[in-house]
């Protein structure tokens, strides 16, 4: 017991000391971050006395404090830098790249020692003697190595002692700035982040309690006093929530304060001249979000310097200023923060991207050819993509653009890219303001309510059961000319879909996927507090977490991405693989669905919705094998059964057309189609085109198996109901297939 008490005493004592050191560390880190920016500004404008004074003051303060705290190594380095800065301030030395570099290196050394102090309580073993010597040498060399940038300054003699020409502008504004700083300090206090986090949690609880009270008082209009009290509580809570959120906001500047320095070093290493410009430094974001975007943003900036900005010679040849610019702009837009990062480099070479995608086996040659510009750029966000031949240690640090996109997606953000060859590239990031309390839509499914984060929400629509159509069993809704795949929440959650005269559909977008979620009703929209759920639900990816609803019960938050994955909603990438078989970029905006147009062996034009097609293939006739009455081909690892379109239709038509299956040549075009879980190859005469058509205008079909007729390229085309045809075919498959034996014979 005695030992424990003594131990406590020691801890208390060291705690007092810790507090002072802690404060020193926090202040110094902040100062050093500012120092980097100031040094770069000074390098650009050596005449700025204010900047120089600010740098000098930082160094002076650090030196003084660490002398007091007994960190002698730290003090020595800071002293060396201070002396050099003294020379600059007095005008005996001029700023040059060597001096700027050594001062930046000083900042790094100081940071390293600070982190030693933070970790071990002392300033470490390293003396940085080399750096101290460099600082001293630069100070001593005075004007000798410095180019005479400012002609008005008399050249200094090569002496250790400054000559002190004392030009009038050399007086330091230090006292004024010191006074200004004092007044700022009076209006600000330092608060431990843990306290703010705790406050935020409490406000979350209060919001929930408020929601509960609101639910309880909803039906008490007859008690005006209670209703008024509840209303008052409501407005106070909203204000408090707003206020506490505000305390956690940090200017975006904290996320990119180090970028100018990083870009300068990176540019120097690559032999490029690059400058960072920022706008909207004061745009505020929740600190958790700032933490989350720091790395993705840093990666984009490094990427821009490494790949975007050209070498000076190349820039000159292109008639651009030698110095490249990476421009960052942040702004609030509709409850979100938008960050635009623009460089004026060479832009993304789309041909290179296509070639790389091919090389990496991400796409096949014929797919690559048909890729639109937009889709090509999107490829850079695919895992395993990188256009640098050699992964440099600068931007290729094992983090790809896919990670940037994933990390932003995780916090409900997004990134888009636009590029112009020779002009540069622009990345637009959209990021939510906070993570802890999110607006959500409360939806009903059966007896339960679920929360849908509004960040995923695009719109709400209603549809009668008659308006919901199916594509071979998969429910879809025509929404402004496009088919929206539908997912029934009740079904996905293992329940039954309730019969209704009209369905509520929440149109959701998540991680490249867009789909309609069919629910029983919308209850409310509310601010919900995201709560951690224990590890027992780990395997359930349909839910992103839980919250407490207004009535005090637990509500589950739907994970829209998990839900889409579960329901097998196609990603854009998967859609693209299908769509890019045929280029229809011109028709892209046209309403309706894409139809694959082909002929039967007699030259009759037919079409099926492209969505039904898994793949288009051509098999050499020699590869056909016979398996009983079924002609088959080896298709990857499986056996693909083939059925001839003419035979199928012939069988239905019950006409006497008998002549020839195929008069085609050696290559047999086949549409691969997934029918009730198994692949079927449909042999056709010739594949013609992909067109877009609004199926609403179809003329009714003239024979069984034909959904309707339409005109394509001036000719009558039958739109086949392939699912129906193949379902029928299943029953009398043999009958329809007999004719195919001739093929393999």
């Amino acid at each position, binding site marked *: 017991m005695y030992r424990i008490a003594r131990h406590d005493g020691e801890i208390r004592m060291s705690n007092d000391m810790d507090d002072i050191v802690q404060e020193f560390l926090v202040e110094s880190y902040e100062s050093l971050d500012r120092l980097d920016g100031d040094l770069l500004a000074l390098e650009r404008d050596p005449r700025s006395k204010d900047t120089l004074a600010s740098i000098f003051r930082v160094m002076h303060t650090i030196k003084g404090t660490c002398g007091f705290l007994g960190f002698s190594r730290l003090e020595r380095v800071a002293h060396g830098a201070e002396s050099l800065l003294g020379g600059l301030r007095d005008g005996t030395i001029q700023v040059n790249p060597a001096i700027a570099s050594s001062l930046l290196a000083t900042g790094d050394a100081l940071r390293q020692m600070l982190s030693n102090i933070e970790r071990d309580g002392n300033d470490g073993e390293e003396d940085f003697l080399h750096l101290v010597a460099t600082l001293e040498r630069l100070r001593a060399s005075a004007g000798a190595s410095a180019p005479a940038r400012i002609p008005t300054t008399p050249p200094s003699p090569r002496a250790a002692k400054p000559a002190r020409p004392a030009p009038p502008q050399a007086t330091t504004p230090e006292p004024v700035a010191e006074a200004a700083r004092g007044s700022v300090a009076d209006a600000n206090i330092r608060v431990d982040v843990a306290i703010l986090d705790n406050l935020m949690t409490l406000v979350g609880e209060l919001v*929930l309690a408020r929601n509960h009270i609101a639910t309880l008082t909803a039906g008490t209009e007859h008690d005006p006093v209670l209703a008024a009290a509840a209303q008052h509580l409501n407005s106070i809570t909203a204000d408090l929530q707003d206020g506490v959120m505000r305390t956690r906001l940090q200017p975006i500047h904290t996320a990119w304060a180090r970028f100018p320095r990083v870009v300068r070093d990176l540019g120097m290493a690559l032999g490029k001249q690059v400058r960072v410009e920022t706008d909207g430094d004061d745009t505020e974001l929740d600190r958790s979000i700032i933490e989350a975007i720091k790395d993705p943003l840093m990666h984009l900036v490094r990427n821009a310097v490494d790949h975007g900005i050209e070498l000076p010679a190349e820039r000159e040849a292109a008639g651009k200023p030698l110095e490249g610019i990476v421009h960052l702009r942040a702004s609030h837009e509709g409850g979100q923060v938008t960050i635009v990062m623009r460089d004026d480099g060479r832009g993304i070479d789309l041909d290179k991207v296509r070639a790389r995608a091919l090389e990496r086996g991400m796409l096949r040659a014929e797919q690559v050819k048909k890729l639109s510009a937009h889709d090509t750029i999107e490829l850079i966000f695919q895992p395993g993509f990188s256009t640098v031949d050699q992964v440099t240690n600068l931007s290729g640090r094992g983090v790809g653009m896919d990670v940037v996109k994933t990390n932003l997606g995780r916090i409900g953000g997004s990134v888009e890219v636009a590029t112009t060859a020779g002009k540069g590239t622009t990345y637009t990031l959209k990021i939510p303001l906070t993570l802890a309390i999110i607006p959500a839509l409360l939806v009903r499914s059966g007896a339960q309510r679920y929360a849908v984060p509004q960040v995923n929400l695009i719109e709400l629509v209603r549809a009668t059961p008659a308006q919901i159509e199916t594509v071979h069993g998969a429910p879809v809704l025509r929404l402004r000319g496009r088919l929206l795949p539908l997912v029934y929440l009740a079904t996905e*959650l293992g329940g039954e879909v309730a019969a209704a005269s009209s369905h509520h559909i929440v149109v959701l977008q998540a991680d490249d996927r867009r789909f309609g979620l069919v629910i029983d009703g919308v209850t409310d929209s509310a601010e919900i507090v995201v709560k951690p759920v*224990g590890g*027992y*639900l780990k395997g359930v990816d349909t839910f992103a977490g839980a919250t*407490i609803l207004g009535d005090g019960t*637990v509500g*589950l938050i739907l994970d829209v991405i998990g839900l889409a994955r579960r329901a097998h909603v196609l990603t854009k990438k998967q859609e693209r693989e299908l769509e890019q078989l045929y280029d229809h970029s011109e028709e892209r905006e046209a309403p309706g669905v894409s139809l694959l147009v082909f002929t039967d062996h007699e030259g009759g034009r037919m079409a099926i919705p492209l969505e039904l097609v898994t793949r288009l293939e051509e098999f050499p006739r020699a590869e056909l094998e016979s398996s009983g009455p079924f002609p088959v081909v080896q298709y990857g690892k499986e056996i693909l059964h083939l059925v001839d379109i003419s035979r199928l239709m012939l069988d239905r038509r019950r006409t006497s057309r008998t002549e020839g299956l195929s008069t085609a040549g050696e290559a047999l075009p086949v549409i691969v189609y997934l029918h009730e879980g198994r692949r079927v190859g449909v042999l056709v005469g010739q594949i013609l085109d992909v067109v877009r058509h609004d199926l609403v205008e179809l003329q009714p079909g003239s024979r069984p198996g034909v959904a309707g007729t339409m005109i394509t390229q001036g000719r009558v085309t039958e739109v086949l109901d392939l699912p129906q045809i193949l379902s029928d075919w299943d029953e009398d498959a043999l009958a329809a297939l007999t004719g195919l034996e001739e093929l393999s014979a």
Partner: protein
Amino acid sequence: MSPQLYATFTVHDRYLGVPVERVQEVLRAQAITPVPLAHPHIEGLLNMRGQIVTALDLRARLDLPAREAGAPTANVIVMTPEGPLSLLVDALGDVVTVSEELFEPPPETLQTDTGHLIKGAYKLDDALLLDLDLDRTLDFTSARGT
């Protein structure tokens, strides 16, 4: 061996207990939100003063007949590495003092799938108190039964 305190409860017709120090608190019946697609033994989630607690249906866990709809329940909250967990029971009993002399391991004839969840029984004057093996009970997400 010093006497031990056990928190007791009933599940179906079983009289069960766990060491009192493992129990964080007990709650009367709570509104429970079912979690579709979760493990079948998970009854759902409940709100314990703002904290989300997973509820484990002990009847299902012990392979006992399901509770009738609307039948009374109570919650025995235990802390686990995966977060707080509620053992959903039929009714709460007293805290009783048991001693080692009263303990006896289960008979060899206990051969049901969930037999390993019972460490043994304390021979109390008026009843047999079954000693529930909490660690094994909580390990319901791995292979069942063994």
